[in-house]
């Protein structure tokens, strides 16, 4: 690692001023939900952070996560941070392939045993290991081997974090998340389909400076997954006023009203989409007129349909309901007929009694 330049040298080479760097550190500090007083520590840590080797493994995935992180607009400092880590293996981005590439991975592992960061995107098939292999090595085997020497694992994207789309019903490959296989390493889940680039680089930066960030019960950094999209949505005033788009091309849609009735999952989805936004803060799905799909949550693919509002039943209840109405009607009629028969019987069994009879009986 000694031959790799430290961050200040890289900054100089890319023409980034110290002022620019400090500004970046300030925004990073607030991004990571740290107190502003921590800013100098962030700057110091970033400047002196040893640059860990990063091994990036891609399993059952669509390369969307890599696409997303490479779209973190160049030449931002996020990019530099990303460049500043020593990305020793990433088979989409590296030129080498096949056995050569695997040799690079093995070398990086050996040189940095116990210290490298393992980034994973994609889920791991366990129904049959052979469903997904790289250079003849199954994903499961590669993950186990590589995780053994990692300091920490970052599961990037919903597939690696929660199983994602390969895990969706009926899950033909038996796809599982990294955390289902590796139990003895710190794992940071950075879900999203894909995650926001700044969130990915932010988590890496946090790891470089202060180690593993504070995580929620699903292993997600609280700084980025602490609030729902609904909490910060700019369409929220319309939700509160009860003004909803009912279709994709009605007046409400044109006026930018709330998308709840079109199936928006913002109220149950934790992510910073509404504040950090995408494509350099240009927009996010709801701003583009599409309801949130809830992609940072486990099983988002199976959570009752993208266009079904959250308050609507998810099952096929209609037939059941009609059957229940029919059954209820039959049972009710039968009950009443029985009661009537009982009444008729009682009437038939009725004896006329007068006062004399009563006196006789007593």
């Amino acid at each position, binding site marked *: 690692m000694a031959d790799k330049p430290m961050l200040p040298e890289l900054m100089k080479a890319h023409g980034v001023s110290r002022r620019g760097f400090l500004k970046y550190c300030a925004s990073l500090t607030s991004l990571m939900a740290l107190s502003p007083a921590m800013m100098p520590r962030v700057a110091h840590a970033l400047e002196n952070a040893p640059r860990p080797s990063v091994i990036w493994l891609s399993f059952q995935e669509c390369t969307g996560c890599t696409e997303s992180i490479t779209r973190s607009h160049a030449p931002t400092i996020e990019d530099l941070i990303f460049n500043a880590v020593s990305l020793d293996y990433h088979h989409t981005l590296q030129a080498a392939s096949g056995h050569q590439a695997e040799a690079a991975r093995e070398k990086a592992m050996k040189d940095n045993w116990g210290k490298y960061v393992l980034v994973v995107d994609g889920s791991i098939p366990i129904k049959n290991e052979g469903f997904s292999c790289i250079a003849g090595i199954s994903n499961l085997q590669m993950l186990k081997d590589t995780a053994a020497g990692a300091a920490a694992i970052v599961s990037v994207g919903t597939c690696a*974090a*929660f*199983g994602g789309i390969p895990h969706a019903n009926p899950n033909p490959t038996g796809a599982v*998340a990294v*955390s*289902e296989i590796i139990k003895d390493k710190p794992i940071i*889940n950075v879900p999203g389909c894909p995650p926001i680039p700044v969130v990915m680089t932010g988590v890496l930066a946090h790891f470089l400076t202060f180690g593993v960030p504070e995580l929620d019960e*699903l*292993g997600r950094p609280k700084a980025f997954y602490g609030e*729902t999209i609904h*909490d910060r949505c700019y369409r929220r005033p319309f*939700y*509160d*006023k*009860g*003004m*909803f788009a*009912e*279709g994709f091309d*009605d007046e409400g849609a044109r006026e930018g009203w*709330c998308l*709840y*009735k079109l199936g928006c999952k913002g*109220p*149950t989805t934790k992510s910073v989409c509404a504040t950090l936004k995408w494509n350099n803060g240009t927009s996010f799905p709801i701003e583009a007129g599409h309801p949130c799909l809830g992609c940072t*949550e*486990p*099983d988002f693919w*199976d*959570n*009752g349909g993208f266009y*079904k*509002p*959250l*308050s*609507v*039943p*998810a*099952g096929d*209840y*209609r037939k*059941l*309901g009609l*059957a*229940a*109405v029919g*059954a*209820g*009607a039959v*049972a*009710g*009629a039968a*009950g*009443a*007929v029985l*009661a*009537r028969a009982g009444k008729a019987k009682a009437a038939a069994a009725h004896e006329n009694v007068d006062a004399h009879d009563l006196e006789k009986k007593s």
Partner: protein
Amino acid sequence: MNNPNFDLLMWARGPGFDIALIIFAAGIVLRIVEIIVLGRKKDLAPAKGNGVAQGIKTIFSRSIPRKGLVHYAPITYIGGYIFHLGFFIAFFFFGAHIVFLDELLGFSQWWPEAISFQWPAFGRVIIESAVALAVLAMIALMYTRLTDPVRRALSTFDDYLVWVLSILPMVTGYIAVNKLFGDPVFMLALHILSVELLMIAFPFTKLMHAFTFVMARYYNGSIQGRKGAES
């Protein structure tokens, strides 16, 4: 990896709702059909007044308290009105409930040209004030039930159960929408589950009055009407 809160929510929206709907729909239809099929003994006496007109009138007139009764039991009357109105406003005019009712009863599916058949939703201020007032009214009603010895003696398990089942959806809904505490997904799941409990108890408790009050009032009114009496 699963999110247990989300799994609970999906259970509530899926199988939980199916179970509740079956019991709710079958139970209500059963009881109504039973009442109708049982019927009434034919009244052979000549009618002295118009039973039908008086019956229909009574359906509405019983919503207005008798003179003097408001003074006699103000909390019961005023609290009762506030609770019912608040519950109706929250149930029928909150946006999320409107889509639910529309999906369940299929207005916009059976009548596709009216895709915006859905009635307008009320804003947060109205809905939440209605819910808050309804909850306060229910607490006041429970207070009189517990402190008035006569009402207390008349109260049954059914009364307390229905009180709890009716107040729960309002409280959990308020908490879920305002994210007062707890995980928002979990609170939403609790809200839906509390409604499902209410649905299940519905046909077997006094909650049935929401459906039978029309029949019952008509029945009483028409008997009096036939006899030529006011009701």
